[in-house]
């Protein structure tokens, strides 16, 4: 009980002393030991490293998993110390939908076949993405997180200790100064006392004892100061060594950055290869697909018209233009496609609604007409350049249905 009480009182005293010192510093009533410039630089560098490492870590996490709900879910699993279930990536889900769509729409039709091939490629892209996320997390995010939760915490702890040591040191300095002032004052009083004849014996005794008392106080304060200075110097050295370790942290992070770059390069290289394979597959079947598609589209169109009875023809009059309207643009587009392959960059578009040009830089449009369009670098993404014969001008994208 005595031990605990004594220790508690001692700690309270120390805490109080530090608080007093800190407060007096804020009010400018006490001197503060300044750290040397090199040390201050190290501290600033450590803070900077910590802040930016944290930001880069967070943003890389967002890059790898843009869905905040999924990130929250992963965080919870991590806290619960359970393994995160392997989630299907967006690319893989799209691939699955395309594959199922192909099965239902007919795997032997041109559209179905292409959907199947694209589905395979998307699945591979999804798998590559998953690998990339896993590798990047392992080689880049984990080391950064370990630094923040390990080394940085150690540095923070030692910095706090250093702050406490400095407060103790400055408190001792303040105490010593007060003791010396008191001693000097006591000495002066001792010198003046002998002048009073009638009270000489008693005053002499008092002044002597006071002087001795203050002398002891000064000695004690000096001793405490030396101890505090030693503690402070040692703590400063420890902290400085830890802070200089930031250089090796930078080297380590540099290596992790290289790993991240490598995994990202691997990811894009894989995706690029998958897309090349897909284009080869689509290119090889392109020639076979188009004539079939064209013939298939044209053939059913003619029989229904000829088979229409005279009675139905008259009644159907208002609707026939709509039905006929569907085929000609497609047919025209297909013919154009075969006769003159589209120039690189330009393409055909069908106008959906009438549009009046607002100024001379725009092109007026009529519903259902076909025009050639292309985009220019730096142009507003809502507009394209449209051409009709010799006329040229800006056209709004929302009024068009791109064809070829």
């Amino acid at each position, binding site marked *: 009980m005595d031990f605990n009480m004594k220790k508690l009182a001692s700690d309270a005293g120390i805490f109080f002393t530090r608080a007093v010192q800190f407060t007096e510093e804020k009010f400018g009533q006490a001197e503060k030991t300044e750290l040397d410039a090199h040390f201050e630089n190290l501290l600033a560098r450590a803070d900077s490293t910590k802040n930016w490492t944290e930001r880069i870590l967070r943003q890389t996490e967002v890059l790898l998993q843009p869905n905040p709900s999924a990130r929250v879910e992963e965080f919870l699993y991590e806290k619960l110390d359970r393994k995160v279930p392997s989630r299907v990536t967006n690319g893989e889900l799209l691939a699955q939908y395309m594959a199922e769509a192909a099965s239902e729409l007919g795997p032997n039709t041109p*559209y179905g076949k292409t959907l199947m091939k694209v589905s395979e490629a998307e699945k591979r892209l999804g798998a590559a993405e998953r690998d990339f996320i896993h590798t990047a997390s392992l080689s880049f995010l984990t080391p950064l997180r370990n630094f923040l939760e390990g080394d940085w915490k150690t540095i923070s702890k030692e910095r706090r200790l250093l702050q406490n040591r400095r407060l103790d040191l400055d408190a001792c300095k303040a105490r010593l100064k007060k003791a010396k002032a008191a001693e000097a004052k006591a000495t002066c009083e001792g010198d003046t006392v002998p002048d009073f004849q009638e009270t000489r014996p008693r005053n002499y005794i008092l002044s002597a004892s006071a002087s001795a008392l203050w002398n002891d106080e000064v000695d004690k304060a000096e001793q405490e100061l030396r101890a505090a200075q030693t503690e402070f110097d040692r703590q400063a050295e420890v902290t400085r060594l830890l802070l*200089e370790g930031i*250089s090796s942290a930078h080297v380590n992070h540099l290596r992790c950055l290289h790993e991240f770059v490598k995994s990202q390069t691997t990811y894009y290289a894989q995706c690029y290869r998958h897309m090349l394979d897909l284009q080869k597959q689509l290119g090889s079947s392109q020639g076979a697909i188009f004539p079939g598609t064209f013939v298939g589209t044209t053939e059913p169109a003619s029989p229904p018209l000829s088979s229409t009875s005279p009675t139905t023809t008259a009644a159907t009059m208002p609707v026939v233009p709509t039905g006929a309207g569907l085929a000609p643009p497609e047919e025209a587009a297909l013919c154009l496609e075969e006769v003159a392959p589209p120039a690189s960059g330009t393409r055909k578009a069908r106008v959906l609604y009438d549009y009046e040009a607002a100024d001379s830089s725009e092109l007026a449009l009529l519903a259902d007409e076909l025009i050639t369009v292309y985009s220019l670098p730096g142009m507003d993404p809502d507009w394209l350049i449209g051409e009709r014969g010799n006329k040229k001008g800006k056209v709004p994208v929302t009024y068009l249905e791109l064809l070829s």
Partner: protein
Amino acid sequence: MNIMDFNVKKLAADAGTFLSRAVQFTEEKLGQAEKTELDAHLENLLSKAECTKVWTEKIMKQTEVLLQPNPNARIEEFVYEKLDRKAPSRINNPELLGQYMIDAGTEFGPGTAYGNALIKCGETQKRIGTADRELIQTSALNFLTPLRNFIEGDYKTIAKERKLLQNKRLDLDAAKTRLKKAKAAETKSSSEQELRITQSEFDRQAEITRLLLEGISSTHAHHLRCLNDFVEAQMTYYAQCYQYMLDLQKQLGSFPSNYVSNNNQTSGTPVPYTLSNTIGPSAVASTGSLVITCPPNLSDLKDSSSTRKARVLYDYDAANSTELSLLADEVITVFSVVGMDSDWLMGERGNQKGKVPITYLELLN
């Protein structure tokens, strides 16, 4: 007064028609009335159109998710679209990461190895962000918009005509039922005439619907071209990003020389001298862990292609003979095996080899 009569008369007629259809529909459900079956070809066309609509919608939705995985951003874009306003150009994730890396590199010092590498990586991430934005824009324009136009345009027309066809068929079957029930000759003649009229209307509507449904083939051809455009956009995106990463790796290729430079700087630190003089036991442990994380030899870095060094963070007892026991703070060689659980790696210590949990390791080189 005439206007009033006209309105009331029309209202009564419509109500009568509606009632007839409802009665016919109910009797069909209860099995008390015959139902005119559509021919097999038309049924096939209808199911094909339905199938096309369903899958087009799913593919469109999932492509949107693929291009913009953040649901909050998708909702925001949807709201802007409904308000008929242009969505503000948002910095995407790679661009933001690039910005952070560049700022961090600038603050760490462009002259330092890490700062320099960060700035280069940051610039590349920004370019990838630009490519990402272009992919989204091109895919939305060439792939998503046509699919959406089909669902909101052509398919709506088909759905409307299908509904009309359904109504005509109900009228036809109601007329047939009425004819069957007719007794008097005069009533029978009237019913027969009505039947002919409804039959003609039904046939006409069936023809119209069939023509629209056969347009699905051209829709497929159109979607096929859009799909090719999407593939091309993705191709362009990955080719660009791959090129950017190759360029970046070339720029960072000078890593070994920087590494040597840092190694010299590290070896210059007077750690051994000060350690023995002033640092206490706990400080030695803390500093020791930092010292141990100092970079290994350059030869190790060069030699290891698929293997790498790892420092053990905590003790680990092997649960079976396929695992390797670990001691905290030791350094082992690890590599990954194809098909292995992603939480484990193969670890080697001298002749001993076994599985090790990733969470117990800190990968080094």
